[in-house]
């Protein structure tokens, strides 16, 4: 049995509680009593808070709750990383990447509690109704009624919402429509409304299989959502891609020229042929 110092153990247990969330004095007394299995009075908890403060751990009472703000021996970042936090803030405030920004801000809160500096969160304008509907539909696996502009025409479809993303510095949404992933710039969206029909999400996404040859097969980096499904004796590899937006994927595979060939599905092969013909038509060929 390890010999321990009960009083100092409670200081750490209280600190651990404050890392998780903010507490009123009564809540903290109750939580610490539960964790330490001994009744902790207001006097004791105040003493432990003072001990932490004495060591430079910044604990403040904000809106009636004890809040851990800074740790003097926590994470340290170089000046380069500090400037990156500024870059991220400047970059992201232009975008509304919905839950991505909320997740990033939640990470920053955790970092702030473990650091002796404060890193400002990203402030984004209040998400509008369309974004809220889009994220609500994803969370509740519902299809959406999407009205958007394509080539100057208003289009209304029932589709599966997949994710909020960006194209350069523009917000975009990714949907699954008839088994194909499609990226639509948010500026082209007229309205999004969650339906009450269950979404199939990305389950029905088309699986695209393509083959890579020669040096491309050797130097190609498999993307997180791809997998190699075959390796030939000559070094060629067969890759399965399930998640990339159709147009982005066709354009990307086109740049690999003859070192890449779509194997299936037929519709993608046909569309690639059409893309090649359309591109050659630009040169009168």
């Amino acid at each position, binding site marked *: 049995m*390890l010999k*321990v*110092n009960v*009083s*100092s153990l409670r*200081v*750490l*247990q209280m600190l*651990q509680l404050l890392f998780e969330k903010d507490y009123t004095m009564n809540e903290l007394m109750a939580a610490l009593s539960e964790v330490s299995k001994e009744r902790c009075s207001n006097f004791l908890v105040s*003493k432990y808070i*003072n*001990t*932490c*403060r*004495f*060591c*430079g751990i910044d604990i403040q009472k904000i809106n009636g709750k004890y809040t851990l703000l800074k740790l*003097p*021996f*926590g*994470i340290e970042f*170089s000046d*380069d990383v500090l400037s*990156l936090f500024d*870059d*991220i803030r400047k*970059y992201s405030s232009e*975008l509304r*990447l919905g*839950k*991505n*920004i909320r*997740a*990033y801000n939640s*990470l920053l809160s*955790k*970092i702030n509690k473990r650091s002796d500096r404060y890193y400002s969160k990203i402030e984004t304008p209040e998400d509008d109704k369309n974004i809220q509907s889009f994220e609500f539909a994803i969370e509740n696996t519902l299809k959406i009624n999407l009205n958007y502009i394509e080539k100057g025409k208003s289009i209304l479809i029932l589709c599966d919402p997949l994710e909020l993303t*960006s*194209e*350069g510095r523009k917000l975009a949404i990714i949907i699954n429509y008839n088994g194909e992933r499609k990226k639509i*710039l948010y*500026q082209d969206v007229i309205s999004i409304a969650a339906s009450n029909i269950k979404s199939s999400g990305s389950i029905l996404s088309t699986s695209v299989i393509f083959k890579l040859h020669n040096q491309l097969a*050797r*130097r190609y*980096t498999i993307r997180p959502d791809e997998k190699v499904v075959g390796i030939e004796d000559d070094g060629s590899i067969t890759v399965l891609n399930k998640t990339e937006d159709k147009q982005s994927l066709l*354009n990307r595979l*086109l*740049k690999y*020229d*003859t070192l890449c*060939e779509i194997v299936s599905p037929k519709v993608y*092969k046909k569309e*690639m*042929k059409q*893309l*090649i013909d359309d*591109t*050659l038509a*630009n040169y009168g*060929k």
Partner: protein
Amino acid sequence: MYTFQTKAEVTQISLTGARLIVILGALMVAPRDLQDLNNIISECGLVDKNYSNDTIRIALSTLKAAGCNITRPCKATMYKYKLISHPFALSITDEEIASLKTLYANMTRGSDYKIAVKFNELFNVLADYTFNDETAGKLRSITSFYRISMDVYERLLAEDGKNNVLTIIYANPAKRLSEKKFIFGRIFLKSNKLYVEGCDLENKRTVCYNMSRIRKVVKSEKGEYEYKPEIYQVRYKLKNIDYHTLLPEANVEKKDKDEAIINIEFTNKFFAIQHILSLGADCTILEPAEIKNEVISKLMELRKLYA
């Protein structure tokens, strides 16, 4: 490390609690032996006396009871106590990792490599602080820099802008090693990979090396020649301009409602052709004729492939 308040400011504190926090903070920074820990407590001015080894051991046991994983002092730890994990470590959710991935992918698209290097440093610091191998692995693999030897990475970053002649050992995609000598030009990021571009000393052509394939930087010396990359001034017409992400170096010569004339300087013909092809039917290359003809020829071959 600590900014103790004066005792006058605090009415009630637990000295044993304060001592434990000091020890925890000291172990978070580096492995320590009993003497180190005693010295740190004294230097903090927490007490005027030295503690016995047993008192420090009880503090270490208390840390373990609080959830810290501390190794016993042994030869491998240079006979010091090493903090392996602790309950105050950063726990990062998959959703938070996904947000970092999204930010990284968006901010480094067509961007200067320096921002990717900063992200890589951020991910490494966070990975070290999670004390969780799985999360650390996910963080470190967001960039593909973990494939690069740290020694090579730091040496090449230090070479940026110096115009020196470098000799490197390079593994080609078939993993055959060879020595390459070139005038260092610049580092750039493409498809989440770091490349070194330079000028071959013999034929004065632009060369490009994937940093993850550089096994060693053998030599760096002052060169007689200045690095002058081959320049391909590419001019093209682009439709649906809003849908495409323009490269940062793109110069929009003219823009109508949905069509633009773009000018870009490429220092690598291969990347220029790839860029034009990736824009698909929305792009019509206007000049130079050399690249235009190569694009057409590649498309004709592709047409045969899909016939």
